[in-house]
């Protein structure tokens, strides 16, 4: 892996521009590499044939690691290939295995040249042994600092150290951080909010796919965390005309006296619909990768006697309004009587918090990690608005979405919110 920027420590192969077996000549572009700064073209430093690709597209490698071998067509590259360090961990679940090198039977030729492997580059990082986490970024240097005891405790408890923020000097993860991480779900089952920032709940219902977080995504994440904390929030507010939604609610509830659909149920449904249209918002930042969920599992904040809890409406995108309404009511009741099972209040992909019933016009909510965003819903109230150059009275409602900037950028969030508003203002979109 060549050094392509002054601060680069590792690079991700964005695209191979040559296939195994292709002829390459010195100076010819070989691959595109994502560095922490930008996507750069890597040029071949030797003439020959691209014999073997060791780091596939989407995979990362530290500086100096052999990523491919260029040699004569019949040269024995077995030793070079076998000397190459173990494949870096790749989070992609459908990773295709690199076939084991096949020793060439041809007589040895002049030494094959390892592509772009600088001799002075640092040694490859050790393979994760289950204790020392690899290259997590909690300190300034990007190296994870963790006490030996904490490392061992985390390994034993199955806690991903990368999900923790160390409380020791220089961000060192120490015993008490692990103890806190271990004890939280048990000690305060009714306080999902107490989950440490960034901690990944073990239970989640929605299927998902993991895609390597690009270098630029990781750099953004690192920078923003440094700026305002582990989950860098930003907020998008919009005002929504709710007359049609209110009408729809009235209409539906008139159909059947048993149906008691709330505005909030509609909001949940609309959020789910918008999320399916904007999968980049139905996502979670996981340090080295970004997790995209297939379903919209919506957490619904419910105030209870001694706090709040967010039961999850699974796959809200696939449920009808009446199903959602029934489920929310039932979940909320059990939440108030503290009868929720852990899997019923963890693993949402997006949350909704509604304080409208308290007459709150507008507020910001704190993201429930590792979710990517939360929507804070204010009270619906009649307001004069301008429509077609006339002042009219409309039922208006302000919503503010808090976004995890590590995964959602401003425009992404704005587009989502735009869709959300569009549907809510014209609920017919739900059936279109």
């Amino acid at each position, binding site marked *: 892996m060549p050094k392509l920027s002054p601060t680069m420590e590792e690079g991700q192969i964005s695209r191979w521009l040559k296939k195994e077996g292709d002829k390459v000549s010195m100076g010819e572009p070989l691959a595109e590499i994502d560095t922490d700064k930008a996507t750069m073209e890597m040029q071949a430093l030797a003439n020959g044939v691209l014999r073997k690709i060791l780091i596939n597209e989407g995979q990362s490698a530290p500086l100096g690691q052999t990523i491919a071998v260029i040699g004569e067509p019949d040269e024995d590259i077995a030793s070079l290939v076998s000397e190459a360090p173990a494949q870096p961990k790749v989070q992609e679940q459908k990773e295709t295995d690199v076939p084991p090198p096949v020793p060439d039977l041809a007589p040895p030729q002049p030494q094959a040249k390892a592509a772009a492997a600088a001799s002075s580059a640092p040694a490859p990082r050790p393979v994760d042994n289950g*204790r020392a986490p690899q290259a997590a970024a909690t300190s300034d240097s990007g190296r994870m600092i963790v006490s030996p005891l904490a*490392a061992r405790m985390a390994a034993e408890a199955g806690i991903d150290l990368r999900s923790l923020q160390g409380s*020791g*000097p220089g961000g060192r993860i*120490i015993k008490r951080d692990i103890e806190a991480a271990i004890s939280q779900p048990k000690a305060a089952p009714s306080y999902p909010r107490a989950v440490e920032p960034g901690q990944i709940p073990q239970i989640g219902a929605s299927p998902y796919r993991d895609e390597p977080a690009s270098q630029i995504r990781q750099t953004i994440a690192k920078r923003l965390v440094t700026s305002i904390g582990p989950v860098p929030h930003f907020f998008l507010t919009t005002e929504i005309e709710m007359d049609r939604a209110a009408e729809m609610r009235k209409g539906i509830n008139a159909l059947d006296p048993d149906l008691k659909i709330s505005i909030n149920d509609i909001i949940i449904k609309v959020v789910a619909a918008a999320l399916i249209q904007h999968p980049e918002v139905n996502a979670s930042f996981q340090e080295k990768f970004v997790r995209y969920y297939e379903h919209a599992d919506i957490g619904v904040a419910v105030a209870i006697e001694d706090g709040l809890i967010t039961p999850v409406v699974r796959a809200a995108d696939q449920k009808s309004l009446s199903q959602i309404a029934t489920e929310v009511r039932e979940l909320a009741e059990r939440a108030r009587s503290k009868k929720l099972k852990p899997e019923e209040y963890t693993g949402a992909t997006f949350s909704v918090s509604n304080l409208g019933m308290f007459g709150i016009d507008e507020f910001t909510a704190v993201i429930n990690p590792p979710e990517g965003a939360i929507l804070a819903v204010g009270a619906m109230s009649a307001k004069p608005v301008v429509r077609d150059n006339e002042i009219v009275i409309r039922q208006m409602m302000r919503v503010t979405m808090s976004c995890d900037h590590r995964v959602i950028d401003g425009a992404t969030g704005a587009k989502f919110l735009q869709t959300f508003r569009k549907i809510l203002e014209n609920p017919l979109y739900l059936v279109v």
Partner: protein
Amino acid sequence: MATITIREALNQALREELARDEKVFLMGEEVAEYDGAYKVSKGLFQEFGGKRVIDTPITELGFAGLGVGAAMVGLRPVIEFMTFNFSILATDQIINSAAKMLYMSGGQFNIPIVFRGPGGSAFQVSSQHSQALESWYAYFPGLKVVMPSTPADAKGLLKSSIRDDDPVIFIEQERMYGNKGEVPDDPDFTIPLGVADVKREGKDVTIVARSLMVPIALKAAEQLAQQGVSCEVIDPRTIRPLDINTIIESVKKTNRVVVAEESHPICSVGSEIATQIMERAFDYLDAPVKRVSGADVPMPYAKNLEDLAIPDVNRIVAAVKEVAYID
């Protein structure tokens, strides 16, 4: 149990062992007619006479070697250095003769000898008379090194040292001779060498302290307890062989260690303890092992500088807080 000083406890141990075994004799500068420069041998000359309690010329190398020679042929000398500072003159005999004789004679000549006397920091006697030398002696296989911190330990360990068949360096702390404590009356009371003592149990931080640092560490532990930090204070008592297991067990419980010592930090017993903890309990450490050592300078004379050179309660408290991640 009687409450007596360390000085009296050592005196009792010497008296009892002189009375118990004809082969034991006490030799050193001013040990007999003067009753000992620090009065540890008070009354012994009167009681046992000049054959058993022997004043020497000021000739440390000479009488240390004489003692080793006598031990080669069956006696059990107790050689007193007026202070361990003067043992530096005798190190050839202690190290090249006493420590190695058994080995280089293929197991034929063991050296049952005790070299004892005050050591460590004294009160305003400057550089040549105030220093901790235990890490020197602990370095050499063949020697055993003992440092008591209480009257009971002083008595029990000195008796064991005299009865031991190997050369023992027995370092008494010059400032601690007057420290009082309970000592069992049993004349056969001994404390085995090589066994650490947990002076105070605790769960948050282990403080390993020896000699003068033990009472200081206990004071620090008391202060910290009031702040909600529970310290375990371990006194190895024998520096070589070092009862590292007791320390390791404690570290596995507390995950944090402070080693307090009077000696200079470089190549100290504390360095050794830290290394062994790292080697044997790395995965139990929640913080780096922290040493609180004497200043890395010759001991100054001026009172304020001397105080700065010797670890005190505050420095131990600060070190404990550092490893416990308490601001």
